[in-house]
């Protein structure tokens, strides 16, 4: 009785050690990674034509892990691309922490694990419009305290009658803007129409400024 138990146990141990030596087992690699900066729905990543939807994190701001269902064998190549951006965002392969290059495409097995880095950012658009009637020097427009300024060039003499097209630094989707005349031009008073709003999915070009004699 005792010996009959020992024999199968030995056989099992032998089989196990053979398998561990790499008999029929092939190394398998999962194409996985993480996405940072994702806020809105709609991100679709693809590898070899296989799409994978990635949802925003439950805790805002934390990275999202993803893994493609199909496993790769040693030597297979992979190339993870962004085939669908989230609403109001743009995503692209990024440089992982401590890395130098993007790592979205490579050969499985070159590294122990595949950990692709993808980064998303909120889309930004310019805000601006036209300036009409400017004859004095020194006009400065500002978008609040942190949104940047636009300083108009000193008008030629005599001033051109063509409206000047201006743009202030870009504003991210969902962020408010409020353009005011930070410094009035010499001898004139300028007013702004459509000065405030919340950024949508296109550049704002109707923040028009009209200047008249003071």
């Amino acid at each position, binding site marked *: 009785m005792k010996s009959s138990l020992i024999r199968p146990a030995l056989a099992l141990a032998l089989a196990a050690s053979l398998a561990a030596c790499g008999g029929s087992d092939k190394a398998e690699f999962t194409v996985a990674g993480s996405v940072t900066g994702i806020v809105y729905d709609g991100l679709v990543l693809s590898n070899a034509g296989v799409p994978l939807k990635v949802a925003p994190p439950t805790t805002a701001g934390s990275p999202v892990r993803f893994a493609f269902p199909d496993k790769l064998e040693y030597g297979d190549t992979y190339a993870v691309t962004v085939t669908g951006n989230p609403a109001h965002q743009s995503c692209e392969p990024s440089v992982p922490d401590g890395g130098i290059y993007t790592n979205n495409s490579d050969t499985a097995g070159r590294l122990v694990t595949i950990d692709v880095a993808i980064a998303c950012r909120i889309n930004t658009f310019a805000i601006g419009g036209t300036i009409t009637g400017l004859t004095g020097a020194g006009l*400065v427009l*500002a978008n*609040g305290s942190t*949104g940047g300024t636009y300083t108009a060039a000193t008008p030629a003499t005599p001033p051109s009658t063509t409206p000047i097209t201006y743009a202030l630094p870009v504003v991210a989707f969902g962020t408010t*803007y*409020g*353009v005011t005349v930070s410094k009035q031009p010499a001898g004139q008073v300028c007013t702004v129409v459509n000065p405030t709003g*919340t950024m949508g999915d296109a550049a704002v070009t109707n923040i028009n400024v009209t200047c008249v004699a003071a």
Partner: protein
Amino acid sequence: MKSSYLRASAALACAVLLTACGGDDGQLLLGGQISGVTKPGMILTNNGGSDYEVPVPSNGTGVSTFFFPTLISSDDKYDVQVKSKPTNVDQCTLFQNTGRAGFDVTTIQIACTFKTQALTGTVSNLKNELVLVNGSNRVTVPAGATTFAMARVAQDAPYGVSILANPAGQSCTIANGVGTMGAADVNNVTVTCAP
């Protein structure tokens, strides 16, 4: 004759060797990135040596790459400190500011934050909710409120309080809503709503 040539060249070789071994060659840059420089007065020193004033970048961002005018030598120890700050800077945090030079040192990071001031005001006759903005700073003022506070503003930065959404059934105007922040709080922004 022959031996005097030999002597001279031996002396020259000796001198070259000594220089190569870390005499005072001074050929490495010492610098990095700094933020928060919108006014003159940002003075840095290395090892407590002579003052170096960081030029104010022309684009108004306050972010600049800086390099000490004096080159340092391979194997020199360096210790960069902020000796004095422009009047509108609150504090500076330094990263990788000490070490021993191997190659050009370009990795020093100095992050300075600005002093900020409050931007507040009063509202009169507000019967419904009003939304004010100062650029990206959005503040909802509830019905019946008589005061409001926008986010603090860095000294020397412009501000411009404007109306994003008028209260239902009312129209509001703003007085003293535009300016450049000085060294004191601004508390005189006045919003008047009608009817």
